[in-house]
């Protein structure tokens, strides 16, 4: 598993990952641990490359910027303590060739990342080649590294791919940095919110708006290959589920039933969309096959059945229903048979989302006027509440199943002022709660899978 090489736009793979080294391993299942001290040396460039890159990207020191991307990613995991660059004793170019390990041990760094950025020309076009090496300071050896060549504009993604490699090497888990988040950007007063679909890199950069805000849009969700998004739009005041191709901008209605369609999500194979249809005061769960255009009713109950989410193997569906009198979480087979309630704690439960690992379901819980984000096993046992607040909901899993992103709204004051909606993330351990910076107010986040190439 560790020796698997993920990167395809590698033109030159000059370093083989070593056989398993034991010393700098991190156990991320523990909650509160001492972060591992790590140094990310600025990546260096020769003068000619610097000039070219400056011309192409208008960035003076791209190597420094890339090291900042990596450093921020690692710091935000809560697993690493990224050391200040001012304390580094060795120059980036020499460190990249062969670090003086004593210099790095002296500042208490256990791990060192070095790199090099070179401008190259292929078929008369400018590219950048980025090399990186991961060093074990105490063991005094290189433990991993690779080299990537890409168009200059892609430099942040290379930073994310390096971060993923480091995370994978040091924790034994797959990373989540080369990913995007689609969400609803919000502006304006609470009674007249303007909402747009927006997409950004996982670290908040490269925000793009996909709709203009002319109609209300809600609950966007990625397909498994991250090219398609399904969401709810109030286009022409008819709330319907839509399918949007992010690359072509082409969109179509998929939930064109008489009545309102909402709460869409893709099946794990991306071939179906599961959603709710509300008609005559009753909401049921339906599945639409995108290849055959056949739609099938899955639930049959006079209560509200909504917020469906597939298990990663596609065999089960979790959803919430108020058939017991209040909103609770249920699991059924994907054909609608064997419906079983799994939430039995105090309070009401909603928005169940199956984890990518398959073993947990994340949910929103309302109890005694407070909203919680929590997780439980798929049979309802082992409920754990991760965070409590005035209002928060809509959990979405990072692709490695270690982090949950959600949105939180603030309480307004006596005059109804002070409303805001923001994205937050929290580790599965219940630690490391963080505000996710967005250009505008934000809600309904959905985390993509790893982007591939």
């Amino acid at each position, binding site marked *: 598993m560790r020796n698997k090489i993920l990167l395809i736009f590698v033109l030159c793979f000059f370093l083989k990952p070593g056989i398993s080294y034991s010393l700098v391993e991190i156990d991320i299942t523990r909650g509160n641990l001492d972060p591992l001290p790590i140094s990310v040396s600025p990546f260096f460039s020769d003068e000619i490359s610097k000039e070219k890159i400056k011309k192409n990207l208008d960035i003076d020191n791209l190597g420094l910027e890339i090291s900042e991307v990596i450093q921020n990613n690692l710091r935000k995991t809560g697993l690493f303590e990224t050391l200040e660059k001012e304390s580094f004793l060795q120059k980036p170019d020499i460190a990249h060739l062969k670090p003086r390990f004593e210099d790095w041990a002296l500042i208490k760094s256990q791990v060192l990342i070095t790199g090099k950025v070179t401008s190259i020309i292929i078929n008369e076009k400018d590219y950048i080649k980025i090399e990186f090496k991961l060093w074990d300071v105490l063991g005094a050896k290189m433990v991993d590294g690779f080299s990537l060549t890409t168009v200059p504009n892609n430099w942040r993604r290379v930073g994310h791919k390096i971060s993923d490699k480091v995370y994978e090497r040091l924790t034994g888990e797959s990373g989540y940095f080369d990913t995007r988040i689609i969400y609803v950007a919000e502006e304006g007063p609470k009674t007249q919110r303007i909402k747009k679909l927006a997409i950004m890199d996982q670290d908040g950069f490269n925000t793009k708006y996909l709709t203009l805000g002319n109609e209300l849009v809600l609950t966007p969700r990625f397909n498994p290959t991250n090219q398609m998004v399904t969401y709810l739009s109030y286009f022409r005041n008819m709330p319907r589920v839509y399918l949007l191709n992010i690359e072509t901008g082409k969109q179509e209605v998929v939930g064109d039933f008489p009545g*309102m369609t909402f709460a869409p999500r893709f099946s794990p194979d991306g071939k179906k969309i599961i959603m709710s249809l509300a008609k005559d005061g009753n909401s049921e769960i339906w599945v639409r096959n995108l290849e055959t255009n056949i739609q099938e009713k899955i639930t049959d109950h006079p209560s509200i059945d*909504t917020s469906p989410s597939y298990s990663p193997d596609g065999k089960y569906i979790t959803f919430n229903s108020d058939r017991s009198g209040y909103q609770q979480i249920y699991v059924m087979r994907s054909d609608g048979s064997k419906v079983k309630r799994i939430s039995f704690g105090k309070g009401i439960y*909603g928005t169940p989302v199956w984890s990518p690992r398959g073993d947990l379901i994340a949910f929103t819980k309302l109890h005694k006027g407070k909203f919680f984000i929590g997780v439980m096993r798929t049979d309802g046992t082992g409920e754990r509440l991760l965070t409590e607040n005035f209002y928060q909901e809509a959990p979405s899993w990072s692709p490695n199943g270690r982090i949950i992103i959600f949105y939180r709204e603030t309480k307004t004051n006596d005059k109804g002022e002070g409303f805001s909606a923001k994205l937050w993330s929290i580790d599965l351990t219940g630690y490391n709660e963080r505000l996710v910076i967005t250009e505008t107010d934000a809600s309904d986040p959905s985390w993509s899978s790893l982007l591939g190439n």
Partner: protein
Amino acid sequence: MNLSKILKNAFLVVIFGLIITACATKKSVKTTTEPTTTSTKAAETQKADPIEKLDALMQGDVYIGSDTVGELASGVPDRVFFATNETILTTASRETLRKQAAWLRQNSDVTVVVEGHADERGTREYNLALGERRANSAKDYLMTYGVSSDRIKVLSYGKERPVDSGSNPLSWSKNRRSVTVKEN
């Protein structure tokens, strides 16, 4: 002429408001037997805004005041209010809807959209379903009183379009509503 019409409408609204308040004051005696949480909430809101007396504006947790209430037609209120997580019509709601039905029967060329809403204290998707259920609850009642179903569209906004941006029980009670809006 327009002005006099406006004045007349305003007068009607005031009268209507007085009637409601009068009824409400009587009923508020009953609400003192509600669980203590209600009176604590009432105390809080009164402290925050002494002008609004919660007992006179909410029965249980259903809004019975006239703030935010518009008119479908002269003397015909445009909206009804619901209890938390409920879609059942109260006595006052049924009275309002009977007025709407009577007016719609007299104005048979008018079509309407019944917009269903929820307060902010629920998950977005569930609230969309709840708003749809509330709107249909009103629609069904209008149909019972002789308005044909093809004249009534239903549209749920869930918690997306609150009328009151407050984060307190009174604001939430105003937002749990279905509003009958003329389409033409």
